[in-house]
């Protein structure tokens, strides 16, 4: 659980940086058009959304590791 919270904190930090560097950035989520601060709020409020983000973050991390291993001599 702690690891998940740390991960979400990292994602929120990325989104905060995004707000500064690209203020027009949006996440289209079905019919919703969310700004970075709105995505941050959704990470706190919407459990399913939070779980999806965590699941795919770990999935991506594993894929990246596998790709790195394949590149090793």
């Amino acid at each position, binding site marked *: 659980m702690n690891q998940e919270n740390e991960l979400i904190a990292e994602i929120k930090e990325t*989104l905060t940086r995004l707000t500064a560097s690209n203020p027009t950035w949006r*996440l*289209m989520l*079905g*019919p919703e058009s969310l700004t970075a601060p709105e995505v941050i709020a959704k990470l706190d409020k919407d459990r399913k959304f939070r779980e999806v983000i965590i699941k*795919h973050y770990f999935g991506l991390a594993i*894929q990246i590791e596998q790709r790195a291993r394949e590149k090793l001599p």
Partner: protein
Amino acid sequence: MKGILIRPRFDDPTKYTFDFAAEILAWCRQAGISVVELAETEAIRSRVEEELAKEGVDLFIHYDHGNEDALIGQDKNAVIDADNCQLLKGKEVYTLACLSAKNLGARVWRIGGKYWGYVDVVSFTTDALPEFRRAFNSGFLFRFVEGDTPQNALSRAKSVFDQLSLELVDDGKTMAALAMRYDGDILVYYNGHKPTTKKKLGPFCLLWRRLRR
């Protein structure tokens, strides 16, 4: 081959998906697919039913909003739902709509149609629009322009989502990468494979599973 392309535009997501669908329209014309475009005010139920009732329509393309049981038109009402989905009997559906593969897609499959769609909410970010357009449209390219089989088209499209999500990580676009990976995960193609139905578990089974953890 003859097709119908429906593309409403009435909010932020449809503003982008309207543009994504332009590429599909161009490919249809290049590939010799005769396509009737029902855009914006034309993307309503009566016009869709009118075109589907005509002879020889093989392909039904819909970009964008949907729910588990319906594809949505310009007036925010269903253009296709359980009441008129028999019009899709024997046809191939290619849609970017959220959730629609879940029930509507399975229904179309049961009446002999094929259904390319998503079983959950589709997402994309504005910092990677060309990548999302490429991923969302890739299945159409493989299946209808290159003429690949349903199974191969699905497998190749899922690889595109995977590959692009890794490239987006390299570009530092983490949220785009997560959305891309998720979209690839929820993509289905009935008849590339059968719909999977999750068996509903009773309260005792659920309790047993919880206790076993």
